[in-house]
């Protein structure tokens, strides 16, 4: 078996309205990982998931599940996939337990009350099993959506913005559940527009914006970037160019020549700041003000989106 359980190749979607929701996305999901798809509203996250799950028809490209085309082998593909959609949509007149059993059988699985009980207990839904769905709170409904998605024991689980509008307790429960599922070998793909969520949960993070995947990276790599700091120096006199004596530090000069930016590893023994400042004094460059700040995932994210906008 290859390392990637799911391969997305050149996936495109243009809606009838003309919106280009996905512009040729390529992505490989590794077996057993938690992958976070991070992007602002309207980035195309739901569209991507919906195409993989068979709810939206792609305009081009394909999805492979263990190397098999997801449309040609749709039975196998769909039996293996579970989806928790973004919206809380359910048959509100049904009792909780019947709707979860329904999901299991719909996906072709033998009825298994024991397994359903396990799932409901794990999601703290067992006491409410006889409740009619419309009587449940929003948080409970979210749990029901997860129970439905897990009812047929999928080994690939999609969670579309699972924690949007969810309280702290449920968020914690959900993250614990996701971790437990991963321990049992389930591959998890979740979308979010909260950076902290990607940071806390994921093994890898993909950043999507305007239908384009602009970065896919190990979270630890992102965290390394996160550990970096930036020093801004407001110069007393604008510079035309960086003097050769400062090249060693590789600083960046703003367009108007008034700000010098130096990026450094805050955790390193030598940040290079004292030597840089000494070199500047020797070169006769004075500054009015300085500040340092952490480059957060948010910064990286905003920077990336900025980049892709500038490139477009």
């Amino acid at each position, binding site marked *: 078996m290859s390392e990637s359980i799911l391969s997305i190749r050149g996936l495109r979607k243009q*809606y*009838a309205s003309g919106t280009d929701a996905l512009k040729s996305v390529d992505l490989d999901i590794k077996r057993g990982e938690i992958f976070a798809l991070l992007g602002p509203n309207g980035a195309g996250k739901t569209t991507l998931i919906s195409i993989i*799950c*068979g*709810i*939206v*028809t792609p305009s081009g490209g394909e999805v492979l599940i263990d190397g098999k085309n997801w449309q040609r082998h*749709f*039975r*196998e*593909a*769909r*039996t293996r*996939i579970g*989806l928790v*959609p973004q*919206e809380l*949509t*359910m*048959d*509100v*007149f049904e009792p909780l337990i*019947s709707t979860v059993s*329904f*999901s299991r*059988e*719909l*996906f*072709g*699985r*033998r009825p298994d009350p024991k397994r359903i009980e396990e799932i409901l207990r794990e999601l703290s839904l067992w006491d409410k099993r006889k409740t009619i769905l419309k009587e449940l709170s929003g948080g409970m409904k979210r749990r029901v959506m997860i129970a*439905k998605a897990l009812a047929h024991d999928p080994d690939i689980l999609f969670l579309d913005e699972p924690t949007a509008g969810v309280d702290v307790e449920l968020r914690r429960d959900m993250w614990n559940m996701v971790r437990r599922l991963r321990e049992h070998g389930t591959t998890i793909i979740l979308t979010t527009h909260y950076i902290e969520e990607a940071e806390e949960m994921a093994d890898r993070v993909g950043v999507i914006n305007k239908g384009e995947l602009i970065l896919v990276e190990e979270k630890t790599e992102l965290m390394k970037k996160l550990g970096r700091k930036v020093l801004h120096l407001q110069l007393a006199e604008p510079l035309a160019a960086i003097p050769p004596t400062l090249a060693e530090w590789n600083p960046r000069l703003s367009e108007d020549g008034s700000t010098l930016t130096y990026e450094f590893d805050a955790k390193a023994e030598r940040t290079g700041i004292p030597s840089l400042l000494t070199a500047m004094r020797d070169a006769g460059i004075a500054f009015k003000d300085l500040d340092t700040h952490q480059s957060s995932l948010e910064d990286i994210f905003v920077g990336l989106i900025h980049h892709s906008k500038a490139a477009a």
Partner: protein
Amino acid sequence: MNWRGIWAIYKFEMHRFARTLWTGLAVPVITTSLYFIVFGSAIGSRMSEINGIDYGAFIVPGLMMLSLFTESIFNASFGIHMPRFTGTIYEILSAPLSAIETVLGYVGAAASKAMSVALVIFVTAHLFVDVHVEHPLLMLLYLVLVAATFCLFGFIVGIWAKGFEQLQVIPLLIITPLTFLGGAFYSIDMLKEPWRSITLFNPVVYLINGFRWTFFGTADVAFGTALAATFAFFLACLGVIWWIFRTGYRLKS
């Protein structure tokens, strides 16, 4: 085949009907009784026989067909329209179900319900008149074919409709008038020309007369013609549904 999936949809739909079981049964019993009181006593007293058949018995197949049409269309269209409306269709679309399997689940359940109502009418009619069925097996088969056809048609309506009021439009504005004008309660031979010939363009005439033939062995059109017409309608509906799933029309964006 994902038989479990089909069965899950079937059970879900039947469960939905069961929630309104009593009204679901009371309505056909009451309307049938009303028809017999109004048509049977008021008209039947002046018109005792049509083609040698007692008028009360004569209208039984027509009554059953009228209910079968409207029940089939309504149940099947509502069954598929509801998940589209609430958004729960996502689960059906993401399940390992082929188009045929999805349709079997919804149409199977709607047809079961519609046939139950038709049979309730049949039983209720016996309270008022003697009805003897000449070809009981053919009668049941015909009932299945017509129920399946109109449920397929209802399924199409449920996918086409943009709102709940459109679900009512087809049965009320098309099917009910065609049924009343299609000889549900009279023989088209009683009509003067050119009305008789014009009526032959009404497809419902064939459905009703095919069904009536299984009861009495005589009807306004030959049984073979009626069966062929019904079958043609059945195939046309299947064709449209095949196209819907192929293109994702109003099911997928």
